[in-house]
């Protein structure tokens, strides 16, 4: 169990480090945000299995859909930014 939690923690740390350290690449920041969301999702699923409660998995599905739409919005913003300023 604790090892699985370590996995999600490392995923989260990788996401944070990606946002902190990527100074040039906005795509990377969006990917890191996705990674943060995924690590949270992983936790939800893990605990729903561990506590035998389906609500966690349902909530993980909700987060996935919200995260997908959010990344879509982010990518759209990036594209429109690129169209206006010709650089990212």
């Amino acid at each position, binding site marked *: 169990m604790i090892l699985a939690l370590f996995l999600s923690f490392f995923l989260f740390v990788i996401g944070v480090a990606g946002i902190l350290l990527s*100074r040039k690449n906005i795509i990377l920041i969006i990917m890191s945000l996705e990674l943060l969301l995924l690590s949270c999702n992983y936790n939800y699923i893990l605990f729903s299995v561990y506590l035998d409660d389906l609500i966690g998995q349902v909530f993980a599905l909700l987060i996935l859909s919200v995260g997908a739409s959010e990344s879509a919005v982010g990518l759209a913003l990036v594209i429109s930014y690129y169209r206006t300023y010709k650089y990212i």
Partner: protein
Amino acid sequence: MYLFPLYITLISFVLSFFFGRLINNLYAGILTSIFVFSGFLMSLFIFYEVVICQSPVLINCISWINIGVFELSWAFYFDSLTASMLIVVLGISLCAHVYSIEYMLHDTHQIKFMSYLSLFTLFMLILVTSSNFIILFVGWEGVGICSYLLINFWHTRVGANKSAIMAMFVNKIGDISLLLGFACIYYLISTFDFSIFFLSITSIVNVAHIFERYSRLVNTTLVFVLNNNLLYIVDNALLLLFLIGLFFIVGAVGKSAQIGLHTWLPEAMEGPTPVSSLIHAATMVTAGIFLIIRTNILFQMIGDLFIIIIALGSVTAFMGSTIGIFQADIKKIIAYSTCSQLGYMFLACGLSGYEFSIYHLVNHAFFKALLFLVGGYIIHAINNEQDIRKMGGLLRILPFAYIGIVIGSLSLLGFPFFSGFFSKEKIIELFFSMYENVFSNVYYFNSLIFFQMLVNIAVTFTVLYSIKIVVYVFFLKYVNNKKVLINLHFSSFVTIIPLFLLSILSICSGYFLEDMMVGFSTDIWNGSIYRALNEFDMSNINYFEFNYLSSKLPVYSIVYFIVLFIILFYTCGSLLYYVKVMYPWVHNFYIFFNKKYLFFNKNIFYPIINNTFRFSYNSMYLFFDKGIIEIIGPFGMVKSINKVVVSNIKLQTGLVYHYFGFIVLSILFFIFIVTAYVN
């Protein structure tokens, strides 16, 4: 009806101050004069009802402060003391008003001047009619403020500013002392009402006497054990009463220009002459004397204070007359004579002849106002020249001024059958009644002899400077510029009227008022003044008769010295000048008196004032007000906010990863704190 003089002076002030510009100078003066005249007439009615018909009146107007345990109201009390003061104040004020109609006519601010005069009169009326100490203090402070405004009336002159500030400053010492006295009174009886205060004094002193007798009769320790608490309370109350007396004396010293705080009085000569006459004759300087007379029961019941008053009064009388001799400014000479006469009044209070004090106050008000107004008349005539050495030979030019000055001077120096004679001689005679009272105490006895000697010398010197004025102004050869005589300015009939009235009053007021105010069997002071002479037995009167020659010594000395000084002046005048020029120590002696005892102004007052102001500027203002409070307060706050904001601006980089870093750091910090707390 009783409050009519108060209201009418207030209306006079308000109308002339706010609406005076709608009418011209002349009509504003006439208007205020008519108002004050109607107040004067009403004061005559008040005198009739209160003094002649013997019905004191207490008028409770409105409640001022009402907080349960402590109640204070605007209450006015009219007894015989107040009524006689009312006549003096309003009479002199009327003369000053009428006089300044013409005297100040060509001044641009004459309307303001008249309104200030009315305000001055109003505050003095509040002072004399008050029925508790706080209302008295309102009048007391208002008189001080108005004296500042009036002395500073020609405010473009530096001298006027200086002397006005000096008057405020010196008076403030007395005011603070008076406030301390009020604090003691509140601590003692929790009220400021005169009647309760006087009642409590008598009861406290009586209880103390009973305790004294009781403790002599019974075993002392037993009494102490039984009544320890009560004894403590009575002792405390006696001490407080003594303190109150001391504080009141200092307050009266400040206001009445006794020695030590007298310097403002001659300096106040910078104001216009009607102001000088109003301040010095009736209103301002008599406030201190009035306070002492009003609280006479205190000074009568608490022993040992009388010697302080006697000392202050007699030394002031001596000092004022000695300085007056060596002055050259006609107004300054008269001012120092005021100082000297106030000393006599104070002295009479110390000798427990309070009715003699008020009697001398009334007479003095008339002849001193006359002297000042005639002085102003002369000054106005000869191109505002105040130096008597530049006058001379004015007898032919201003004969009316000569008559006025001679009448005023004779009255002032106590020439027989002028008004000053009746009051001054009696004050000096009071010493003889005092000797018997203090016979058991050798220190008091000796000091009384010394003070009587001082006063007798002061009487002589009064003769000297009065004659000096008359001779210098009217008889010597005229030495000033010829153009002054060509441009001579004669005042009109309006100015002469008050001089005429005051001349008549200063001749006959003493004679007319003697039996009523200080006669042996008079009963007009019922309740308002404690009369020591009522308790005289026949032995004292015999004593007077027995020592008739010694008690009438001042009269003989006055007549003798008048003749002597006149002869000396014409025979040895040049010799005296020769002596003064030839011998440096004589010249130093002259300078010592001419510069007002040197040490008072230069060596005592100016260092005190300078150091006080320097201290208050350097430490209080620079260090505290502009230093600590500013750093902690507004300026420091603004500066520190600026600093914090500038340092915070550096955090606002506009870069996402910086913000995110702060977020992560703060989360880590939070987690660290939580874990540390949990563990």
